[in-house]
C-alpha cells in the first residue's frame, strides 16, 4: 500500500492506494511545521481506515514548501557559485540578473575558474585544480557550506563539474554541492541559476526531510519515503534532499497526473480549479507537457524542468462583480470561502454562489442565493464557462479534442458539457487529485546531449543518452528491470556546422521497494 501526501500552502491532503485501488483520501490544514502536518494527515488516514502500519510500502510527498521558501526568501542558506568558464565568460558574472534582496539573502559569493567544454564535447580550457582549491578555502573562511558549480556545456559533458565537486568536498568537509548539469538544460545562466537556487534550499530540504523522518518514526511507519518531482515522477528522499529545486512544481504535476489516473487517461487536458486560480495542463503519454522555454521563479530566470501550465484568475472563491460587464476574479476570498460566500451566510458574491444559483452544485444553503437576479446569475455563469473553455483551448496543440478532466475544490464551477472541448470527466476523488498523483508516481530519469551526427552515428548517440537517463532513474530509485523510454527527442541546432542535434531522452520505471518493484 502507498500513501500519497500533498503538502500545499493551505491544505495537506492524503490518498491511500492499494495496487490500482484508492482505499481512502483525506484533507487536513497545513501546519507551520510541515512534518507535523504530514503526521496529522497520516494519523487521520490510519484512524479512518483499517490499514495496518506494516502494510504501507512507501510514502510519497509532493510539496510547494521549497517553492514558497524561495519566492518568500525564507531561511535561504548563504550560497556560493563556482563557474568553470575561464578564459571565457568574464563579462557576464553569475547572479547578474538576480533581484537585490535575493543576492543579499544568498550573499554574493562568486568564483570564476578555468574550465568548460565546446559544444562537441572537446575541452575548451583545462581545469585548474589549485584555483578551485583556493576558491574553496575562501568559501570555507567565509563560512559558506552550500555551493553551486556550473561549467560551459556541462549538459554535454559533466566531468569537470564532478571533479570540481570532489575537490570542494575535500577542502570543505560536510559541504553541500549542487551541480548545474543535474538541474538545468542548455543555457549557462539559466542552468547556473537553477543550481544556485537549489544550493540555497539544501538546508531547508534537510530540515524538511528530518521532520518527516521524525514524524514517520513517531507513527512507527518504517516504509521509505520519497518526494515528487516537477514532472510528477518521484525520487528518493536522499536524492531529493540534494535536489530540492526539482520539487518546485510537484503539486501541479501531481494534480495533472492524479486527475488523469483517476479518469484513466494517458493523454488528456486537466483543469485544476482551486480557490483563487485555475491551472490548466496537458498530460502527454502519462506525463505533464513541459515548458520548453526558460521560466522565472521569484524573479530569477531558470530552465528547471517545469510543467507547462496556463493559469487564470478563476477559482471557487472568485469575487463576482455585476457592473455593465460582469466580472469574476481575479480577486478571491480564498480560504475564507466558508465564511464569506453567500451560501455560507457571508456577504460576498463568489463564483461558488453563482454555481449554486445556476444549479450546478449543492453547497451551503441554496436559499441564500435565491434572491440573486436570474439574469445576473446567467451572465456570470456564462462568463465562467467561457473563461474555462478559453483556457482549455489555449493549451490545445492540435485540432484533436482531448478528454478534459476537472479537478480541485473549485471544479463545481464548470458545466458538465461544453461546446468546442473534448468529453468532460469529473472523477471521484478529484478534489485530492494531487495526493492521488503523488501516490501513483513512478520514477523518471532524463538526459540530454548535443552531438554531431557527422562524427557520432545517430544510433550510438541515442543509445548513450538513453543509458545516461537510465542511470539517473536508477539513482532516483527506479527498479532497473522496469525502465522504459517514454520520450526521445531530437532538435537541430541553428548556425552550428555539421549535423549538430540536441538529443533528449526521458525514461520511466517503477519504484524499487525493499529490493523489489
Amino acid at each position, binding site marked *: 500500500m502507498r500513501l500519497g501526501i500533498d503538502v500545499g500552502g493551505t491544505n495537506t491532503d492524503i490518498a491511500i492506494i492499494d495496487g490500482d485501488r484508492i482505499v481512502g483520501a483525506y484533507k487536513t490544514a497545513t501546519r507551520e511545521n510541515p512534518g507535523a502536518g504530514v503526521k496529522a494527515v497520516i494519523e487521520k488516514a490510519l484512524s479512518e481506515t483499517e490499514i495496518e502500519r506494516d502494510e504501507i510500502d512507501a510514502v510519497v510527498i509532493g510539496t510547494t514548501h521549497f517553492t514558497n521558501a524561495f519566492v518568500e526568501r525564507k531561511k535561504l542558506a548563504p550560497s556560493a557559485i563556482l563557474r568553470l568558464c575561464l578564459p571565457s565568460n568574464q563579462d557576464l558574472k553569475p547572479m547578474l540578473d538576480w533581484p537585490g534582496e535575493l543576492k543579499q539573502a544568498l550573499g554574493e559569493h562568486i568564483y570564476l575558474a578555468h574550465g568548460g567544454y565546446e*559544444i562537441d564535447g572537446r575541452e575548451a580550457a583545462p581545469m585548474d585544480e589549485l584555483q578551485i582549491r583556493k576558491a574553496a578555502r575562501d568559501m570555507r573562511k567565509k563560512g559558506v557550506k552550500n555551493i553551486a558549480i556550473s561549467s560551459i556545456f556541462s549538459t554535454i559533458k559533466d566531468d569537470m563539474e564532478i571533479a570540481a565537486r570532489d575537490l570542494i568536498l575535500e577542502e570543505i568537509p560536510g559541504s553541500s554541492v549542487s551541480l548545474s548539469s543535474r538541474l538545468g538544460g542548455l543555457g*549557462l545562466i539559466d542552468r547556473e541559476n537553477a543550481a544556485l537556487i537549489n544550493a540555497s534550499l539544501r538546508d531547508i530540504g534537510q530540515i524538511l526531510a528530518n521532520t518527516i523522518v521524525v514524524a514517520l518514526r513517531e507513527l512507527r511507519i518504517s516504509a521509505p519515503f520519497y518526494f515528487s518531482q516537477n514532472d510528477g515522477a518521484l525520487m528518493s528522499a536522499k536524492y531529493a534532499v540534494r535536489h530540492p529545486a526539482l520539487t518546485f512544481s510537484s503539486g501541479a504535476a501531481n494534480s495533472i497526473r492524479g486527475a488523469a489516473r483517476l479518469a484513466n487517461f494517458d493523454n488528456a487536458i486537466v483543469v485544476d480549479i482551486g480557490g483563487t486560480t485555475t491551472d490548466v495542463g496537458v498530460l502527454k503519454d502519462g506525463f505533464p507537457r513541459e515548458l520548453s522555454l526558460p521560466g522565472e521563479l521569484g524573479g530569477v530566470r531558470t530552465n528547471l524542468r517545469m510543467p507547462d501550465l496556463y493559469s487564470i484568475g478563476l477559482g471557487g472563491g472568485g469575487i463576482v462583480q455585476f457592473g455593465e460587464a460582469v466580472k469574476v476574479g481575479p480577486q478571491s476570498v480564498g480560504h475564507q470561502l466558508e465564511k464569506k460566500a453567500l451560501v455560507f451566510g457571508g456577504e460576498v458574491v463568489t463564483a461558488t454562489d453563482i454555481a449554486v444559483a445556476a444549479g450546478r452544485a449543492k453547497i451551503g444553503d441554496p436559499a441564500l442565493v435565491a434572491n440573486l437576479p436570474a439574469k445576473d446569475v446567467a451572465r456570470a455563469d456564462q462568463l465562467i464557462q467561457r473563461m474555462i473553455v478559453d483556457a482549455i483551448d489555449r493549451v*490545445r496543440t492540435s485540432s484533436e479534442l482531448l478528454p478534459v478532466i476537472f479537478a480541485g475544490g473549485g471544479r463545481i464551477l464548470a458545466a458538465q458539457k461544453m461546446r468546442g472541448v473534448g468529453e468532460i470527466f469529473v472523477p471521484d476523488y478529484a478534489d485530492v487529485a494531487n495526493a492521488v498523483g503523488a501516490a501513483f508516481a513512478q520514477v523518471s530519469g532524463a538526459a540530454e546531449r548535443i552531438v554531431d551526427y557527422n562524427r557520432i552515428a545517430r544510433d550510438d548517440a541515442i543509445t548513450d543518452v538513453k543509458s545516461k537517463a537510465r542511470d539517473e532513474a536508477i539513482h532516483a530509485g527506479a527498479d532497473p528491470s522496469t525502465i522504459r523510454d517514454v520520450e526521445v527527442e531530437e532538435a*537541430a541546432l*541553428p548556425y*552550428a*556546422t555539421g549535423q549538430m542535434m540536441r538529443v533528449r531522452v526521458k525514461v520511466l520505471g517503477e519504484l524499487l521497494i525493499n529490493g523489489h518493484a
Partner: protein
Amino acid sequence: MWFNRGMKIDTDNLDEIVYGTALLASGGGGDPYIGKLILRQAIEQYGPVRLLDPSRVSDRALVVVVGAIGASTVFLERFPSLDALICAVALIERSAGRKIDALVAAEAGGLNALLPIALGLRLNLPVIDADGMGRAFPEGQMMTYGIYGGSASPMAIVDDHLNLTVVGCDDNRRTEELSRSIVAQMGNSAMGACYPMKGKFFKSACVRNTISLSKEIGGVALAARRAKYNANDALIEFFANRPKDPRCAATLFTGKITDVRRDVGGGFLRGAVKMESHAGDERCEIEFRNENLIAQVNGRVAALVPDIITVLEQDSGAPITTENLRFGQRVTVFAIEAPPLLKTAKALEVIGPRAFGYDHDYRPLNALHVRAA
C-alpha cells in the same frame, strides 16, 4: 558635439530597444537575453549613450562593422566577449594604419544590434545609428555595405581565448565561407570586425537610423500593450506615418502553430512552420532559413524576403525566433516592408527570393497584402 544629439539609450529604455531588434530580426538573431545583459552591464558601468546619426559621420572617418559570429545556441553557453571584440578592432586598426572613428552594427536584428553599443561604451567610441541589413540575415555578404561595393576584408575574427585571425579576400562570399570555417574551429562562438569603410562610402551604403527605429518600435509596441491596445495595429499606424521612410506593415495571420519542421545542413536551420486560424478555416505557412523568408496565407504568397516577417506570441506580443517555434503556440504573423536600399535590383540579386532558392520574383508587401476589411 555628436554626443549631445542622437537617440539616447539608457537602462530604462533597454526593453524597448531589445523588443525592436527582436522584431526586426525576422525570426533570427537568437535569444535577446544575453545581448540585453551585456548592454545593460555596460550602461550601468559607463552611463547612458547617444547614437551618432549617420549624416554626422565625416567623409574621411574610418568606420568598422563589429559583431558576434557563430551559433546563437552556443552564445547561451559561451557569451559574446567584449575583450575579443576589442582585439578584433585593434587588428583592423593595425592593418589600416590608423585609429577607427566609429563603430556600426552588421544587422539591426537581435544580439548584433546591441553588441556595438556595449563595445562603443567600453572603448569610448561613437556608435552609428545604422546597420547593413535593416533586419537580420544569415551571411556576411548580405550586408548593404557589400552589396553596394564595399569589401568585407580585412576581416578580423577573435575568439574568447583571444585566438586571432585575419581573413583577406577580394570576394565577400569567399570571406564569409572562410570565416565560417574559422568560427566553427573556434567552437562556433567568435567576435568579428569587418568592412572597414570610409565615411563617404558608408553613408551611401548603410541602412540609416535602424537602431533608433528598434527603440521606437519597442516604445510603440510596449506602450500599446500597457494601454491594452492592439500592438500590431499600433505598429502598422506607426510605420505608415513615419515622416521619413514610411513603410507598409501588416498582420498577415492570427492562429495556432500546427506543425514545425526543421532540417539542419550547411550550418543553417532550414524549415517551415504551419499555422491554422483559431476558427480552423484558414492556413498560413512560413519557410525559414535561420530567418523567416516567405509567408503564404491560404496558398497565396503574402510576404517575401527581404521584407521582414516575424512570428509574435499572440498574448505577450513577444517575437519568437525560428528555433523557439513550437507546436501549439498561439501567434500572429507580422510583416514590415524592407527599407528601400534592400529592394534595388542590385540588392535583390543577393537577398531577394531567388538568392534563397525560391522561384519567385520579389513583390513588395503592399502589393501582396490585400487587407481584409
